């Protein structure tokens, strides 16, 4: 997309560019995956076994990762900003809670807590809109999807 990248001469990036880090991460992932395929029979070239394809893909991934890591130029690592990382972590935590809770607390209570947490704690919205939106979303979705559309959704204590 950024065809204007050619116009400006990039500042000399240090050794640790985004590509370098990503490439090395991919190599590590590929090595771990290749190691995990050890329990599967490899088969032969003419008769690939169940371990053949995963190992092949892992090797390809490793080679490509090396290619990415070896590439010159690219964004210096310091230029990648992580301003939203705290939010991202909070959202992931909230989703993790939802996964743990949905079949124990039921859909409505879980979503109520999820939305209330995101709005009230993470975004620091005022209490009234937070309460209204979280109640509306959790009970509204439940009404539309289970009551009207009969998509099975879990219920928790007190039938909530």
């Amino acid at each position, binding site marked *: 997309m950024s065809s204007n990248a050619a116009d400006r001469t990039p500042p000399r990036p240090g050794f640790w560019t985004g590509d370098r880090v990503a490439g090395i991460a991919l190599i590590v992932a590929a090595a771990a995956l290749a190691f995990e395929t050890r329990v599967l029979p490899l088969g032969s070239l003419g*008769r690939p076994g169940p371990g053949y394809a995963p190992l092949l893909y892992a090797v390809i991934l490793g080679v490509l990762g090396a290619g990415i890591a070896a590439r010159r130029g690219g964004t210096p690592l310091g230029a990648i900003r992580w301003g939203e990382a705290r939010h991202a972590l909070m959202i992931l935590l909230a989703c993790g809670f939802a996964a743990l809770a949905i079949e124990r607390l039921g859909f409505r209570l879980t979503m109520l807590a999820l939305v209330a947490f995101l709005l009230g704690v993470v975004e620091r919205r005022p209490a009234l809109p937070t309460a209204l939106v979280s109640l509306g979303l959790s009970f509204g979705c439940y009404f539309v999807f*289970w*009551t*009207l559309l*009969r998509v*099975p959704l879990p*219920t928790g204590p*007190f*039938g*909530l």
Partner: protein
Amino acid sequence: MRHRLQALATCAAFLLLPWLPALAQTYPDHPIQMIVPFPPGGVADLAGRPVAAAMEKTLKQPIVVQNRAGAGGAVGMAAAASAKPDGYTILVALSSISIIPEADKLFDRKPAYTLDQLAPIALLSADPTVLVVKSDAPWKSAKDFVEDAKKRPDTIAFASSGVYGTLHMAMAMFAAAADIKLRHVPFTGGGPALTALLGNNVQALASGPGPVAAQIKAGALRPLATWGNKRLEAFPDVPTFIELGYKDVEFYIWAGMFAPKGTPEPAMKALRDATRAAVKDPDFVETMKKLESPVTYMDAPEFQKFWDADAARLAKALVKIGRVQ
């Protein structure tokens, strides 16, 4: 309108439900999932869907058929075996249900599931498999086929529903008895295997009579022999392998319904009753007849005995065939 009322009723029932003691008496109170471990178009699917439709009439809840194909049916069977035993998951499987755990044993690997994880509900159909080839193939009879296969070993390819699936077992039994070597090309189920045969990508296929009946009548396929102990009503001219002198080559592809073991007794009873009513349902009988797969119904106790005997027989045949790919 009926739907709306139903929805309203469910909604009302639902609002009341929390005030009743846990696990209200009304089984089933929401849709039931029926796992068919093969893609649409195979024997299990062709038997499962009409019986689901017929059972809905008794159970008054939709039965949602889910095709979860792969590894000769092991994927879907394992999913059903480990499902929550609440009566809302049932399985329609084929004879291969007994073979797969045995094959896992043969390869010294952790079985995908074990037979005691499943409780039988009913047997729905049992048909011998049929050996079919394209009608433009050079072989006019099973004898031609065997002679040609002997002349050029490991060149004629056959399709199957997966390694150690029903269609593979049938063919392997025949190949072992006739002392021929064929190329095995596994697919995810009988449906794709049939497509491969029609597309000339393989040359032969052992199939349940249902999926191929229409193609045989249309002249696209030619039946060479069947695996039954007597000739099929639909194809009276087609000899059995036993008639042709292969004494032990007898194989039935049967479809049965199962639930995960531990499903509550009231739910099991409701399912058995619904199946019993379903196999008498005129629509169902008519559909199965159209598919050339007459209903062979057995209730749970009887079916369990049949299943045990069949499993023992297949286990023995499997040992004889041994490890293949």
